[in-house]
């Protein structure tokens, strides 16, 4: 990696850590421990299902909230606080800065997810007293959640490159919700004709298809995720986030820092 991108990324990661972003791990730890103890007491044979479902949903939601709320401020906060002036007057290109910020926040989210994943597996071990081969599906689900984060951070960066932080948060969250319903949108596009059909088709392909990243239920049942889907989702997430970041860079390159 370009060293300047690495320096910006590390500074972004350090800022997130010092701003106590990782404190969400405490809330997650409390939640997953309480869930494990509770389901261990009351349920019969569904402990695994409940722990995986609850754990992975929490990993996803905690991460998405961080991705949106820090993502929208990655560049706009630097412009507002004018910290950018002393960075961009150095041999740092604007695209390097944007990519560095993106890498820094996704790195923070990966570290966050790593610790949460440990929590999920500890809870699984607590309720099932052992780990089994089918638990590997949980790892795939976690990998898909991280891919989701890449897209959400890229979208937050894209929107924040031309709109206010509040509007950027609204746009990104709206796309996250619509993206989780992308399969339904595609189904609707297939059965609709005329202008509405065209609009639905365009929308269905424009919004990020988060529904294909959601394999939490399969993981909870211990079903293996097809390798094709892993490959497809990985390529899709990389391509989609690369496009959103490119858009953010193009807009940011032309922006006057008043």
């Amino acid at each position, binding site marked *: 990696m370009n*060293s*300047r991108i690495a*320096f*910006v990324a590390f*500074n972004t990661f*350090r*800022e997130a850590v*010092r*701003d106590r972003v990782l404190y969400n791990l405490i809330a997650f730890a409390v939640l997953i421990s309480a869930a494990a103890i509770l389901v261990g007491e009351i349920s019969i044979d569904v402990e695994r299902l409940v722990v995986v479902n609850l754990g992975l949903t929490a990993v996803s939601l905690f991460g998405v909230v961080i991705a949106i709320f820090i993502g929208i401020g990655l560049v706009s906060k630097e412009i507002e*606080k*004018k*910290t*950018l*002036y*002393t*960075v*961009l*007057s*150095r*041999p*740092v*290109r604007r695209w390097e800065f944007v990519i560095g910020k993106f890498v820094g926040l996704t790195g923070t989210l990966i570290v966050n997810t790593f610790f949460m994943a440990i929590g999920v597996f500890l809870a699984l071990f607590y309720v099932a007293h052992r780990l089994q081969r089918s638990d590997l599906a949980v790892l795939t689900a976690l990998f898909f959640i991280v891919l989701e984060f890449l897209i959400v951070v890229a979208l937050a960066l894209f929107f924040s490159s031309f709109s206010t932080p509040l509007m950027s948060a609204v746009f990104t969250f709206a796309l996250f919700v619509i993206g989780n319903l992308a399969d339904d949108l595609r189904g609707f596009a297939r059965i609709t004709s005329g202008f509405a059909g065209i609009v639905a088709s365009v929308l269905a392909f424009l919004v990020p298809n988060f529904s294909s990243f959601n394999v939490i239920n399969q993981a909870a049942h211990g079903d293996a995720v097809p390798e094709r889907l892993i490959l497809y989702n990985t390529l899709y997430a990389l391509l989609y986030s690369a496009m959103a970041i490119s858009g953010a860079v193009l807009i940011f390159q*032309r922006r*006057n*820092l*008043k």
Partner: protein
Amino acid sequence: MAAIEILGLQKTYMIGFWRRRPKTALRPLELTVEEGEVFGFLGPNGAGKTTTLKLLMGLVSPTSGTARILGMELGDARVPAQIGFLPEQPYFYDHLTGRELLTYYAQLSGVPEKERSSRVNTILARMGLEGSADMQLRKFSKGMLQRVGLAQAILHNPKVVFLDEPMSGLDPMGRREVRELIQELRSQGKTVFFSTHILSDAEALCDRVAVIHQGQLKGVGAVADLTSRSTGTVEIIFCATHVPQALKAICSETRVTGEMVNAVISQQQQETVLDVLRRERIQLISLTQVRSSLEEFYAAQVRPKSSGAGVGA
């Protein structure tokens, strides 16, 4: 070679949401700063000083025109390594300590890893920040932050240093330290381009100054020339308890202090006044030609309906 050549740089912003209309922040600016010069960019608030600096730093793009720094066009990837910049009222990452911030900037400026630590330590010592180097910037006072700002601007040993209002908000000691630093940079052969509205600082430090007002360059001149020009008046001090009747019509700005009279007369009236003093046996204490000050030059440029540039570049 010229350190900075500004060639018709102009900036117009579009303002308003529904009815967009242009607002000129900087009219076409032509200015040259030679290598090794300390150049003062003077003007009231909102004159276009910061806009000019942001254009030179590539933070805003010009509507038209261009500039060259050390012979390289704006946007040339080699330029940023050769320049240092202190923005007005600088903000820094307050989650970092002074040492971490300077190390980060050294990394971004391409200071080799082997030299980074020693360079940061040297600059911290030079700015008197060794004692607070490992404290987070959120605990720094305004004066300390300004010192950090100056440190980051010269950390990578740039050839041209741009300072936007470096003395603003500083106490007298802080201002003195900045003045000493600028003099030190001059002695190292660096070019310093700084904007200010504190004229005494500009007069004490600058080789040349330019005055900008309402986005337009009003005048450029060497400080030595501007402050050595005769105003055509003479200050006279003599021993008396009152102004003699014969001089009342000639003298202006008269001030009587005890047994001493201080007055200003035009140079043409000098002999007449001396004759009166001789005739009335009044002791002359001093007779000094009044030189123009930078303040007068500045005021002449920014005064409403003032005419053109003062002196040539």
